[in-house]
């Protein structure tokens, strides 16, 4: 038998392991059962005081604890847990010896307020500036904070814990980061550099400053009560996204390597595409051309026609602009099919897991392929009449799904799409 190649002669890339964590819970089984039941993971924030905030809810992961707490430490722990789940399912390599590189989507890292306040208290005077902080930062007392707040720290930890090979890549393409991590893995396998890649995405940035930053950009929903109803993709009364935490890990392998070792194939990454929008820092080009180009590039990469896509796992943030733009651009690519293909937004339930979203939603798309059941878009009581998607509203839907497109769009003009299928084309 010849090595299975795709239509462009490249190695077919398959998924053999997945791990996931969201505000709904840990693991595929728990997440999937809650997702198809239409449960929301969005709740009022209890991790820190919410006084003075316009948005007081989020999809936090409160069932994992790290000490001392920092968003970076939590994102690292979450990444570790989902990677363990993915590796156990894949059964690849040996413990602490993964036979390929790591591509990690992770939020940008910086010193956080608890640590900054700790320094401030150590200064021991009433007027504090950065010179005071500098005077007390050295001498080894805070050396752990150097390691913690290196941009590469999470990837370094994962690479050492799981024995991935080579230089681990930490990447950020904003809200498209998770999709980019998968794309980098796919490309490395297609180029023949490796037979396997570990693609991980994690985000645990529900902290006061991150919330305030998005709030000041008017990006967040302020429909705080009840929190479960805040995220309203494709609804007329949507008013922004809901920040959330989550992590996803995928073991990618060439079809040839996976079948040679008798691994169970969970799905195929049939196509990836990305295209930059140079219009504005936070807004899409009004003509939607970059997003349209991104979807078309992804279809071309998969060697597929729009008619072969059975379901769209939308970016669907529930910001007024995104959802409208997503419908318009999808219509430009899919024509009338845009109103017939079932569309859903997982963010209605798990919120927007930012850097992790692309991977989290790719995993939900693969679970949709496995179960032949599309999870609902909840809070869909008041459809936006200008968005004519066939939204899988409020109740899960059984459907024959052989190919899913998953879209991710982010600040900085980042657009990325994936096409996932059950079997090699």
């Amino acid at each position, binding site marked *: 038998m010849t090595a299975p190649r795709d239509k462009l002669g490249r190695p077919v890339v398959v998924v053999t392991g997945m791990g996931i964590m969201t505000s709904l819970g840990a693991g595929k089984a728990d997440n999937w059962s809650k997702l198809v039941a239409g449960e929301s993971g969005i709740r009022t924030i209890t991790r820190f*005081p*919410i*006084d*003075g905030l316009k948005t007081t809810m989020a999809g936090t992961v409160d069932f994992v604890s790290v000490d001392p707490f920092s968003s970076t430490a939590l994102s690292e722990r979450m990444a570790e847990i989902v990677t363990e789940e993915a590796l156990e399912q894949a059964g690849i390599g040996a413990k602490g010896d993964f*036979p390929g590189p790591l591509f990690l989507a992770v939020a*940008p*890292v*910086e*010193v956080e307020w608890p640590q900054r*306040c700790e320094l*401030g*208290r150590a*200064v021991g005077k*009433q*007027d*504090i*500036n*950065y010179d005071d*902080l*500098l005077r007390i930062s*050295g001498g080894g007392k*805070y*050396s752990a*904070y*150097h*390691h913690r*707040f*290196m*941009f*590469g720290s999470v990837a*370094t930890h994962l690479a*050492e814990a799981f024995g991935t*090979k080579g*230089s*681990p*890549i*930490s*990447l*950020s*393409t904003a809200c498209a980061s998770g999709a*980019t991590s998968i794309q*980098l893995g796919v*490309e*490395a396998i297609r*180029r023949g*550099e490796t037979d396997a890649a570990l693609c991980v995405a994690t985000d645990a940035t529900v902290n*006061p*400053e991150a919330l*305030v*930053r*998005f709030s*000041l950009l008017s990006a967040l929903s302020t429909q705080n009560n009840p929190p479960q109803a805040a995220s309203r993709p494709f609804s007329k009364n949507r008013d922004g996204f809901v920040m959330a935490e989550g992590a996803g890990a995928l073991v990618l392998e060439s079809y040839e390597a996976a079948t040679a070792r008798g691994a169970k194939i969970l799905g195929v990454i049939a196509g990836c595409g990305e*295209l*930059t*929008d140079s*219009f504005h*820092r936070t807004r899409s080009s009004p003509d939607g051309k970059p997003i349209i180009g991104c979807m078309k590039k992804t279809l071309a990469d998969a060697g597929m026609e729009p008619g072969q896509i059975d379901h769209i796992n939308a970016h669907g943030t529930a910001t007024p602009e995104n959802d409208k733009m997503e419908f318009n651009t999808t219509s430009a690519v899919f024509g009338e099919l845009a109103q017939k293909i079932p569309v859903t937004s997982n963010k209605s339930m798990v919120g927007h897991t930012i850097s992790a979203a692309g991977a989290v939603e790719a995993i939900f798309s693969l679970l949709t392929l496995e179960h032949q059941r599309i999870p609902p878009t909840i809070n869909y009581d008041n459809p936006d009449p200008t968005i004519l998607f066939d939204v899988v509203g409020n109740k899960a839907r059984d459907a024959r799904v052989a190919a899913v497109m998953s879209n991710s769009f982010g*600040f900085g*003009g*980042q657009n990325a799409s994936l096409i996932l299928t059950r079997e090699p084309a």
Partner: protein
Amino acid sequence: MTENSATKPGQTEVWITGIGLATSLGEGLDANWAALEERRINVDEKGFAPYVVHPLMPVSFDSQIPKKGDQRQMEAWQRIGTYAAGLALDSAGIKGNKDILAKIDMVVAAGGGERDLNVDSGVLTAEARGANAPGFLNERLMSDLRPTLFLAQLSNLLAGNIAIVHGLGGTSRTFMGEEVAGADAARIALARIASGESDIALVGGSHNGERKDLLVLYEFGDFNLRDKFAPVWARKDHAGFALGSAGAFLVLESRAHAEARGAKPFAKLTSVVADLARRKQPGDMAATLELLWSKLPKREGKGAIISGATGAEPATSEERSFLKAHADFPVRATGTMFGHTMETQFPLGIALAALSISRGALFPPNDSTGTEIEMQGAPTQIVVVGAGHWRGEGMALVEAVS
């Protein structure tokens, strides 16, 4: 196994056809080259005393970022990078070339997180004076943070700003992770062009070393050079790095694509390799550098090494022991002349390697320890070494185009 993106037989040759530099020594290739030839170093021992930094030589941002509104949306690290990226596009002769810019792939190595020091100091001072209401921090941040500051802090917004200001419409990926992110950016861009996934790419990074928030971060690990400047190799008993401000961008291009548009190469980028040494035992890092060295294609020409050694320990001593095994190669440490520019140091090293090859000479040594020796004649092969102050090792081979 190390990640290896060496050009393989049958794969396309990748040329460096554009270089953009804005550094503490000046802007543009001629100014930087002249400073290197004259062994000029721009170091500030007073402004951030006791810490030593290499400040950016002032540039007129208007010439590459014409809209003031764009400049206001960025913090210094992004302005430096957007500026240097524009210089690289100019250097490659593709500035404003819509057909090429619409497809160019971008891989940027970035940090980010530039703080508003006044906001931070204000919060800490208020807390020290007894502010402790539950929503105190929230209220201060809601009222004091500029809404656009977030965008000036986000790592991927360096690439975003480059795309907006210079009209780039291909792909855009941002790698983080300190020094080795610069090596990985070059490695992935090279691999994509060599394999035919991409024709042309803009690769690089930028860094603002004149930041007290960054000094605090590195002071946690006692990494900052204090009091007095010394060449990188002469810091053994006075270890540390002096942060530097710089933007360094490269245009990488397949030979066929460059020839079709009549572009001339500075040099070719033959190979980039990177790894993560565990650095648990003395010798671990030197062994990884030796391994990377062995992964590079065989060197048969007149060679040299451009090192991104930081001056921090124990990494610099490990690198010195690796270099001792290759003492016949003249070495230059960019950290001495430019300071430590973190994510930017590796692209800067590639840029200087390509420049040296194209100008037919390695720039002179600048060292009091004898580690750097004179080189006679024109270099045809230069190995760029980038070992992180804490983690991550990268290496590249830059060669003359035959």
